[in-house]
């Protein structure tokens, strides 16, 4: 294993019109590490994630995956790099025209790593990893509850044995118990597939549970990062305010976006 971080972001900026969302993000995610980016709404967490995934192109800066620059990469190379990504979307983003099993094995089928005949069995295997039994495989996503959809989303994200898994607010919209179940599953499956994790959340309970390291994003910059144990004595008043959920402090909530 080398010292090359799995993901290396340097000076990444992105603006939409006049609104600067990322203002020079620097972040390293080491191999096998689980990093959680915390921050309020509209601080650029999603944009950071989407920039790494290649869903958005940053204006300036560099993003390296395994030491390889991905910005400005051709689409064939880009596709090769994204083969090692798995992503759990905030709302699950399951394809509602396809049954659960086809959702789970979608990536494998697209990469022709299995045949349609095998896909059903593989999907059931992956569903078992997230604690779901074989009955759900033939249901449509709309027949599932929010928590179940998240689990299927997780099964889909790990289906192609990714090296990096991204989690976009994995616990948002779930009740506290289901949120904890999802957190446990995230910890379990990332360990089982041996993946590097990068999550964004504003749920501190979730962040404490799944993170090795926490980074705080504020006004388009990483203003603090450190091991999860240090989060309660970060010595940073922005972090203090955020993790304690106080309205008063240096962070002023913008009422207008």
């Amino acid at each position: 294993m080398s010292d090359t971080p799995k993901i290396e972001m340097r000076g990444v900026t992105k603006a939409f019109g006049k609104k600067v969302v990322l203002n020079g993000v620097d972040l390293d995610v080491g191999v096998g590490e689980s990093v959680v980016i915390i921050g309020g709404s509209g601080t650029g967490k999603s944009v950071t994630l989407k920039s790494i995934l290649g869903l958005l192109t940053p204006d300036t800066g560099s993003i390296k995956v395994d030491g390889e620059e991905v910005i400005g990469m051709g689409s064939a190379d880009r596709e090769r790099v994204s083969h090692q990504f798995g992503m759990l979307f905030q709302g699950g983003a399951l394809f509602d025209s396809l049954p659960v099993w086809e959702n789970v094995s979608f990536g494998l089928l697209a990469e022709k790593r299995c045949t349609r005949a095998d896909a059903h069995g593989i999907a059931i295997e992956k569903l078992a990893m997230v604690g779901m039994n074989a009955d759900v495989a033939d249901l449509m996503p709309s027949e599932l509850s929010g928590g179940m959809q998240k689990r299927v989303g997780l099964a889909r994200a790990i289906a192609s044995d990714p090296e990096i898994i991204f989690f976009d607010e994995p616990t948002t919209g779930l009740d506290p118990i289901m949120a904890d179940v999802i957190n446990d599953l995230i910890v379990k499956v990332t360990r089982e597939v041996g993946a590097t994790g990068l999550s964004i959340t504003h749920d501190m309970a979730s962040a404490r549970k799944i993170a090795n390291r926490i980074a705080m994003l504020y006004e388009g910059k990483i203003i603090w990062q450190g091991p999860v144990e240090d989060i309660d004595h970060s010595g940073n008043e922005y972090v203090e305010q955020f993790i304690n959920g106080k309205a008063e402090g240096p962070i002023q909530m913008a009422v207008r976006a």
Partner: protein
Amino acid sequence: MNPLQPIGRVVFAFLGTTGRLMTFLASGLMHTVRPPFYPRIVLRQMVDIGFFSLPVVGLTAVFAGMVLALQSHTGFSRFGAEGAIANVVVLSITRELGPVLAGLMVAGRIGASLAAEIGTMRVTEQIDALTTLSTNPMKYLVAPRLIAGITMFPLLVLVADIIGVFGGYLVAVHKLGFNGANYLQKTWEMLTYSDVESGLVKAAVFGFIVSLMGCYHGYNSKGGAQGVGRATTNAVVSASILILCSDYIITEMFFTK
């Protein structure tokens, strides 16, 4: 304020939209001829666009043919030219009303449903999910719908032509007292290859326009439910207007020397 400013803004907005549409169109067309292909999805779209539009198109055509026979009888009887009804019906249906009415009806049916479906996939991040699962959304979503639109529309219009002529026959024979065999013979004598051909060329172009507008507006929709609603409206309105514009252009290409 400088009075030229709003003019400039409108011109730039127009050029911007045209440019975006052309890029979308080029990319969509490119993906229809480059592998991987999705025959299963093409087939499903063909059934949806072609087969399930039959009732709407058939009803439109039969009433168009009927009213055409009735109206031309009212007009022509003043000059004692009732004999020309068969000619008028068959020419109007194959050249104009078949493709245009079918096009407009299907623009409402298919354009709206394409825009709503793809728009919902956009706002629920399903399109992003496709990308992370090694699937190009232009190839998976847009190309099959373009293929289905271009191929199924001419077939639909062919059916509409037949049903429309039949509608005219019904009224002429059963209400206006024409001789059935005589009416059909006149219909057949009058019809030339280029009448039907021009109608089918129109149909292919209209099918392309409807699919393209539905996909384009859906693909670029943003801002939740309201955005999807706007995309749907824009898809139907722009497809209808483009159908009428291109109808004139194609007619001029075919029938003026």
